[in-house]
């Protein structure tokens, strides 16, 4: 039995005006376990807290009930007061007699009665409280960034600049990501490569950053502060230490028919290749699917030509195991498949392209060397139609229900660039809404219309029909004129919806990070914790969390870095002691609890138990208190009651129920 002290606060007249505080003290003093009860004007004041300290000392209290305002207001205050007085902070319970009593009830008898009942419930609970101590876990001062696009690079740079080691894992042969494919950026129209490549170089050169390209995360275990990750370094068949990046191998390679991933398959590449000229590292990889040597055993030209002797056909995949304190997911996006959008004739005509493909067409390093031309016949287009919201804001299963956010702006950019460079080309944009929130965004769009004469049509395109003459007949509606428009275009550009990278679901599973139905990772709080995953130690950077443009991505990447740095700066983590705990004598090892745990905090171990003389090895649930956030989902999933939540135990809650219902 505890020795409980009850402290009833007047809160000036906030409580005392509607609750007979003296009466509460009198009634509660007679409760079993209560050895001290008093009231005071303001319990949260220094003098009030002092009263608690004195009572703890004089009455040898082991538990404290404060009848006051909401625990959300002052629970922490009174816990600290208890700790200073020498008792465990978790031996404190609050009876909320202000927000839940005095402020909502007018009748004093009724309010007093309710205050007594709430106090009784708190007393009943404290009777079953046990001292709890926050756990500690160590922090490995190294971060992992998954994805080497602008989001990943920026996060890594910011973390590294703060003085912590960072590893970047990038799936493709080079870092750079989508931004490296983009020609110009809105709303300033500066060259994407010009602002990205210095960052890539900086990352590669940074002494705190290690880059694993052509690599994938294979396995993740552990928890916040102490993750262990296996990284698979895929065989490049080129020794990075020897390669000078001269490019001779690529020139000689006879296998030249593979569609270039970097150029969105608008042209081809060789079997041994670097995705683009500024690739980092500037070390080619061999695509074994395309390589004649790997397919037939004959060839070996690249090896012969390589003066550095870097080509090594015997290279094997390598697994690197590394420990991290925090993990940032920055896996980015891709455009959706247009296979279900037959009406836009994307698969029928090479002159119907996506906006990302247009970026490559417009880029000097792209398949047309930056000349705007039709991919079917190389002719310069005279009439270009842009179609917005292709697959975005779509409630059927062909597209995505969300707005892809970046399309309005890049379409304005494309339209403007074309009109600027080729004033004789007519540009028509079919739109549903033009969305331009952002600094200088709407001004940018208006310039496209006002200064560059881009023809914006409010309406959607119903179908694109390739004509025998090579033209594309675009049938759309102009809702403002209430007309149907038929337009012969030379080129159609689709603002295709973006979606998270296909691999993200696999990664989310490995990280036990929650993911929504659209495959975006869920943030811990939509407003207040937008760069953290609900899973402790996992952070989100870039489009993996939701559609974003470059400036937003960069700022979020920085924010994620700050969160990581904040975590790595700690030597030890204090963990919330109100975590779940399994009673090993009751546990069945059935996995029900692990199935409902949102944090992957529960694992199973074969444990030797001594059950009243019976010794046997049993599969027992083990809760990792560093991961557990204390929601209690597991406690209800557990049929035997083995799983219980410290601080909100089954017996504690039942005792509150009993106290209220008596």
């Amino acid at each position: 039995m505890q020795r409980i002290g009850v402290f009833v606060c007047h809160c000036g007249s906030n409580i005392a005006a509607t609750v007979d505080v003296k009466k509460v003290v009198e009634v509660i003093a007679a409760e079993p376990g209560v050895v001290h009860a008093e009231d005071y004007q303001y319990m949260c004041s220094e003098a009030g807290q002092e009263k608690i300290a004195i009572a703890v000392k004089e009455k040898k209290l082991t538990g404290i009930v404060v009848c006051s305002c909401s625990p959300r207001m002052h629970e922490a205050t009174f816990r600290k007061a208890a700790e200073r007085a020498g008792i465990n902070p978790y031996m404190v319970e609050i009876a909320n007699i202000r927000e839940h009593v005095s402020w909502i009830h007018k009748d004093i008898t009724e309010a007093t009665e309710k205050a007594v009942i709430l106090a009784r419930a708190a007393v009943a609970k404290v009777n079953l409280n046990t001292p709890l101590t926050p756990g500690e876990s160590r922090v490995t001062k190294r971060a992992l960034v998954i994805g080497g696009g602008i989001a990943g690079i920026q996060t890594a740079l910011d973390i590294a600049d703060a003085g912590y080691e960072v590893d970047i894992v990038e799936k493709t042969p080079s870092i750079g990501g989508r931004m490296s494919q983009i020609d110009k950026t809105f709303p300033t129209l500066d060259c994407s490569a010009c602002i990205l490549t210095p960052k890539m170089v900086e990352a590669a050169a940074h002494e705190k950053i290690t880059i694993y390209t052509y690599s994938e995360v294979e396995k993740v275990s552990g928890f916040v502060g102490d993750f262990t990750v296996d990284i698979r370094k895929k065989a490049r068949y080129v020794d990075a230490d020897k390669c000078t990046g001269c490019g001779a191998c690529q020139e000689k390679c006879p296998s030249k028919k593979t569609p270039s991933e970097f150029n969105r398959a608008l042209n081809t590449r060789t079997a041994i290749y670097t995705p683009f000229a500024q690739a980092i590292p500037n070390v080619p990889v061999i695509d074994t699917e395309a390589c004649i040597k790997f397919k037939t055993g004959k060839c070996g030209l690249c090896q012969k030509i390589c003066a550095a002797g870097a080509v090594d056909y015997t290279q094997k995949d390598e697994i690197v195991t590394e420990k991290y304190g925090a993990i940032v997911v920055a896996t980015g996006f891709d455009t959706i498949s247009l296979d279900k959008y037959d009406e836009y004739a994307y698969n029928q005509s090479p002159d119907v392209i996506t906006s990302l493909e247009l970026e490559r067409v417009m880029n000097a390093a792209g398949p047309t060397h930056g000349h705007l031309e039709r991919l079917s016949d190389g002719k310069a287009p005279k009439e270009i139609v842009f179609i917005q919201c292709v697959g975005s804001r779509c409630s059927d299963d062909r597209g995505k229900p969300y707005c892809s956010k970046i399309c309005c702006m890049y379409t304005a950019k494309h339209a403007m660039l074309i009109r600027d460079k080729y004033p004789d080309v007519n540009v028509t944009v079919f739109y549903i809404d033009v969305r331009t929130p952002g600094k200088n965004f709407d001004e940018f769009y208006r310039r496209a219309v006002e200064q560059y004469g881009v023809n914006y049509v409010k309406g959607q395109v119903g179908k694109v029909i390739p004509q025998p003459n090579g033209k594309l007949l675009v049938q759309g509606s102009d809702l403002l004129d209430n007309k149907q428009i038929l337009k012969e275009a030379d080129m159609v550009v689709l603002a295709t919806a973006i979606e998270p990278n296909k691999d993200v679901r696999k990664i989310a599973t490995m990280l036990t990070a929650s993911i929504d139905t659209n495959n975006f990772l869920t943030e811990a709080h939509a407003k207040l914790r937008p760069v953290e995953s609900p899973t402790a130690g996992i952070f989100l950077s870039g489009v993996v969390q939701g559609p974003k443009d470059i400036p937003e991505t960069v700022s979020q990447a920085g924010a994620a870095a700050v969160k990581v740095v904040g975590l790595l700066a700690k030597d030890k983590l204090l963990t919330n002691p109100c975590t779940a705990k399994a009673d090993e004598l009751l546990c069945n090892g059935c996995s029900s609890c692990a199935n409902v745990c949102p944090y992957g905090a529960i694992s199973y171990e074969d444990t030797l138990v001594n059950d009243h003389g019976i010794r046997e090895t049993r599969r027992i649930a083990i809760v990792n208190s560093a991961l557990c956030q204390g929601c209690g989902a597991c406690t209800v999933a557990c049929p035997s009651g083995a799983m219980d939540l410290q601080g909100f135990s089954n017996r504690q809650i039942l005792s509150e129920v009993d106290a209220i219902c008596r």
Partner: protein
Amino acid sequence: MSHGKNQAELVREISGTNPLKCMKCGKCSATCPAFNEMDIKPHQFVSYVVNNNVEELVKSESLWKCLSCFACVERCPRDVKPGKIIDAARQLVVRERGGNYLTADEIPELLDEEMPQQLLVSAYRRYKR
């Protein structure tokens, strides 16, 4: 011709669509082969229902110009199905005239030599449920 249930509600009920889902993209009108024949355009059907102005929709030319090709239904990104809405409006007229559907025996005598095959097909499509 309004008794009991409000007509807009009837249209919603018969068509099984929710016009409020419309985001006014106009893809229905963009895709409609009978657009030029219509006085009220497919994308407008929705607002007539939303604004409870079914009476006018029922009186419109469009009611009988729609081919029920269902291109708008196929292409609508918001699952609003203007084709079903106009079909529902037609239903109101048919029901008002006392019938619900034609019976199979009635069809032959109604057949016109010059009636295009396409209309027959679309009629079947329209009335199959």
